[in-house]
Structures are given as structure tokens and as C-alpha cells.
């Protein structure tokens, strides 16, 4: 199995070059010299070619890369927006599902209500909880992607 030694860290297989992994950066998690700053600086230089292709001004991107206060604030804003979204939706789940045991304990009569011949708690837990979770997940994916698009739009805005 001599030929099987793995890919070198920074050479994505040609057919599968990933947008996310800039060339030359050691794969995350591999301890080999994974200090982030030097590769980041290199990437700005490399990024000029990409930016030229897209013909968009690159000052905000540079702000991000250089960790200037403006760039830092932009990232913090994105993180805060995504976290607020996740927390809000998990509160929806806590209210919708997490409160059920308490409700059943406080108002045992709820457990005796029958819908279509089945006791309500069985319907809620055994059937309806799954579409509910899926719905919350769907809403999250939609809004999280919108947050990211907003962030991207700010970075790409020509006058920035």
C-alpha cells in the first residue's frame, strides 16, 4: 500500500477544489503549524486575482482579513444575528415541546382529552412533534441563509 499515503494537506483533489479551503492553508485540525494569521495574509494577496475576476472593490474584504475594528464588528454582527435566530427558534421549541411535561403535570385533565379516539398526549408526542421540529428546522435554514446573504451583500457592496 505504498501509494496510499494521504493527500498533502493543502492540495484538494483537482476535480473537487473546494471554495472553502484556500490553497496553502493546512487543513483545520491538523496541528502542523495551523496558526491562522500568516495564511490569512497570504490569502489577501491570492484573493486579488479572485476579486479582479469578480470586479468588485475589495476594501471591506480586506478589513475582514486584517481584523480591523470594522471587519471585527461586521463578523460580530453576523454571529449575533445567527445566534439570536437560533436562540429564538429554540425558545419556540422549549415553549412548544419543553413545556408539555409541566403542562401535563399541572393540568392532568389535558391528558384525558381524546382526539379521534386517541389521548391527546399520544398524538402530540407520537405524531405532531416530528412535523413541528421539521418546520422549525426549515424556518431556521431559510432565515440563516438570509442572514448570510445580507452579510455577503454588505461585503460586496461597491461603495463600501
Amino acid at each position, binding site marked *: 500500500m505504498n501509494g496510499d499515503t494521504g493527500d498533502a494537506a493543502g492540495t484538494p483533489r483537482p476535480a473537487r477544489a473546494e471554495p472553502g479551503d484556500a490553497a496553502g492553508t493546512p487543513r483545520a485540525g*491538523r496541528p502542523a503549524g495551523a496558526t491562522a494569521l500568516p495564511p490569512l495574509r497570504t490569502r489577501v494577496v491570492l484573493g486579488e486575482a479572485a476579486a479582479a475576476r469578480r470586479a468588485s472593490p475589495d476594501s471591506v474584504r480586506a478589513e475582514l482579513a486584517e481584523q480591523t475594528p470594522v471587519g471585527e464588528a461586521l463578523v460580530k454582527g453576523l454571529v449575533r444575528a445567527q445566534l439570536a435566530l437560533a436562540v429564538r427558534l429554540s425558545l419556540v421549541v422549549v415553549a412548544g415541546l419543553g413545556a408539555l411535561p409541566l403542562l401535563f403535570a399541572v393540568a392532568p385533565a389535558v*391528558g384525558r382529552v381524546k382526539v379521534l379516539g386517541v389521548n391527546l398526549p399520544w398524538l402530540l408526542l407520537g405524531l405532531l412533534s416530528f412535523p413541528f421540529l421539521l418546520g422549525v428546522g426549515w424556518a431556521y*435554514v431559510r432565515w440563516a441563509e438570509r442572514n448570510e446573504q445580507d452579510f455577503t451583500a454588505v461585503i460586496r457592496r461597491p461603495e463600501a
Partner: protein
Amino acid sequence: MNPYVVPGLVVVVLVTVGIGAYGLRFARTTSDFLVASRSVSPAWNAAAISGEYLSAASFLGVAGLVLRYGLDVLWYPVGFAAGYLALLLFVAAPLRRSGAFTLPDFCQVRLRSPLLRRLATVFVVFIGCLYLVPQLQGAGLTFTTVTGAPYEWGALLVGVVVTANVALGGMRAITFVQAFQYWLKLTALAVPVIFLMLQWQSDGRPAVTPPAGPVFATATTVVVQQDAVLDGTVKVRAGEELTFAAGERVPEVSSVDDNRGVAWLLPGGDSSLFATYSLILATFLGTMGLPHVLVRFYTNPDGASARRTTLVVLGMVGLFYLLPTMYGVLGRVYTPQLLMTGQTDAVVLLLPEAALGGGHLGQFLGALVTAGALAAFLSTSSGLLTSVAGVVFTDILHAERGGSVRDFRLATVLAAVLPLGLSLYVSNMDVSRVVGLAFAVAASSFCPLLVLGIWWRGLTDVGAAAGILAGGGAAMTAVLLTVMGPPLDGWYAQLIGQPAAWTVPLAFVVMVAGSLLTKRRIPPDIGSTMLRLHAPEELRL
């Protein structure tokens, strides 16, 4: 014995090995073995994640618990599914963007601490073993139930097939195998349930909860498993055979703990609010900390697709969990003798023949669910073994990127030996309970690490290590006490038996406090790490 079972099991094993061998043709480098070269499409990936996740505890255990305890244990399937929502909301996209392949990798990326990495390795191996042992045991018990062959054969067979498959094909093959096994598991429960419902209708819808308690649907002979007292009066000895007529009430057996009547049907049977919330916390938050779940996210090409994959998984897993409940409920009607023997985990396997009779239809559907159960053991243990082997490979054999495929195979065998040995010697652990405990340990160690690591700039390596040691260590101790210690009672029995409600908050509090006390150790490159975790890939600078 059912003539369809052996051919069914042989087909599942052959198809598994066959897909594994097919995948082997593509697996040429270590990267192929570990992460399928990140070339797996979202639909395949979601089916593979679901196939990997739905273990023996889901396929057999949930129905068995419902049969025995009723409404209160519906929180298990709800929590198992909701775990993916928590994963989606807080972890999925940033984790993929971090580029971390395993939890120890994440420690390295986010906190740059080799010491924390080692600590995480210990927990990954512990959780992996805790989860792997009951899978192999479930395989052994299924073999005993269905074929009458000794317990060890089933455990060994599954252990060897899985080890060979992971060692030879790695994750690329496993992805196809897992995806196939999701659909097999879904079919194996969904098709019989249609016939079971029709049978129940044509039997005149016998009551699930007759006023006097469960009754035998047909004349039944029950072999007593342990010395016990029936209904508090009649003493019986192990091995004694009792015969009941159709319509006779099922006596309560002192050696079997179950819920009857209202306690089964209505909330709050005999589990306290504390135990219920503990279970909810463990399952909702534990999923994100399971080693074999995280590995899969690395096979998505970017953060946005990781999110979409998770959403599809949530749908697929939710669809599956509609089914075991039906088996548990119908088991109350057609296989109430399990309440006397205590082998409620076997309800899924026995129900088709019990309800539909020993004709070809009943036997065929019985063989189908047995094949599905085998798929459940194979897929979950393959995934677990791949992730534990991955950690052993990178962190214990110190192979790093240059490690050869041969090293990965060695790691696989090393990772398989301990759980396999344990499963042969510790045969009386309760499958579903142990899996629940694995969730509790994961929720108390890796959940706070991931959530705080992804969303809070202030996390330090010292704080993270302290939190994992306090919360995860406490949960680990509680698990070991529950599994190996003497039976407990009193108020602390619940604290030990369902630890998540106090160990998860403990882990969070210690982690935050520890980080605030060691503010100077916040990694200097935190800004660029946060950018990397949260910014869309198209903006990569």
C-alpha cells in the same frame, strides 16, 4: 423456526459486504477512507446520516420501552429527533466551516490546545464504546430470540462484519452502506405496520388498554425467566411454564418493572418531572456530541449544504420515529407475554408473527423486521467504529496526514477489540438505558464545548477542560455507577440514573466561569477563527 429469517440475514450481510467492496474500488487514499474525499451528495449524505443514527435502541428499544412504560418514554424518540434540530440550530454550519473532522480536531481549531485535544479523545473513545457495546449486545440478543443460536454468535458476527467492512472500505463504502440501510430500516418497519394495522382492524379493533389491564389475544404459554411473584400472591420459579387462555388477564410479575392502566396511558406514570426533563436535556443536547454524528458533517462540501443535509436528516429521522410507537402500542394487544418475561426489546421482532399468525405472510414480515434489525446494528456500529478508529488513528497512533491506509486498518481493529470483548462478557446491560446514558455523557461534555466554542469568543482552553471534566466526568461517574454499581434508591437514585438535568448545567457553568477566570488565555486569533466559522465560504479571504 421461521424459514425466511436466515436467507434474509444472509442477504443483508452480503449486500453490506458487496456495497462495501464496490466502494473499495473508489477508496484509494487516506482521505477517501476518512471522509469520502468530501464528494458525497446531500441526499446520499442525509440518508447515510439517518442510517447511521437509527441504532438498535431506535429500531428495537423504543418500541420495547413504549410497550412497557407507555406515554412517558415517547420522549425518547422525540428527543432523538429533536437532537438534530439542536445540531442544526447551533452547530451544523459553523462546525463544517471549521473544517474539523472529529471533536478533538475542533478543540485544536478553536482553542489550539493539545491537552484539551487529548481530553476530548478520551471522551470520544468512552462515548464510542458506551454506544458500541449495547449495539453488539442487541445483535446477540436478536440472534438468540430469532434463531435460538447462542448470544455470542450474533455479537461476534456483527462485530467481525463491521470491522472488516470499515477496515477494507472506510467511510466511502460506509456512506453507501449507511444510505442503503436507512431505506432498509424504514421499509422493514413501515411495510409490516400496514399489515398489522389491517389485522387489528379485521380483529375488531381490540382495546389497547382494557379496563382490567392487558389480556392475552390468543392462548399463550409463557416460560418464567426469573423466580418471581405473580400479582403479589402466586410464587413461580425460573423455567416454569404457565399456560393462559385467550382473553385471560396478564398477571403482574414482581421481577418485571412495567406500567399498567392509567400509568401507561397518561402522562406522569411513575417517572418524575425531574427524570422526564433530564431525559429531554440528554437527548436534545446529546446528539451533537456523539462522535459518529459529527464525522458525517465533514463530508458536506460547505456550511450551507451541511445545514440543508441536517434538515433532510431531521425529516428522515422523524419519519422513521413515527413507526416504533405503533409497534409498542400493538404489542400491548398481541404480545403481552413480553410484559411477563421482561424481554420487551423483542416486540418488533415477534409482533408480525404474533399478530398475523405463523403463515407465510407473518413469517415473511417477521424475517423483514429481523433483517432491518440487523441493518440497525450494522450501520450504527460501522459509523461508531469509523469515528472511534479515526480518532485512534489521528490521536493515538499519531499518524497525522501522512498516515497510511494500513495504519487506519490497524486503528479500526484496535478500536473494535475492546467493545467486542466487553459485549461478550457483560451481557445483561439494558440496551436502551445504556444508549440514553451515552447521550447524557455527550450532552454534558461536548455539547457545552461546541455551543460555547462556536458562539462565545470568551471560551478558553482551561475553561473548556474544566467544564468537560466537571460535567462530563460527573456524567461518566453516574453512568459507571448505574451500569456496574449496586441498585440505588432514595432521592439520589434519580440523580444518578438520569444525570443530565444537573450535569449539563454544571458543565456550562464551570466552562463559563473557568473561561472568565482565565481571560488571558483567549486565543489571539479568535477574530479570524470566528470569521472562518461563521462567514459563508464564498467570502473566504
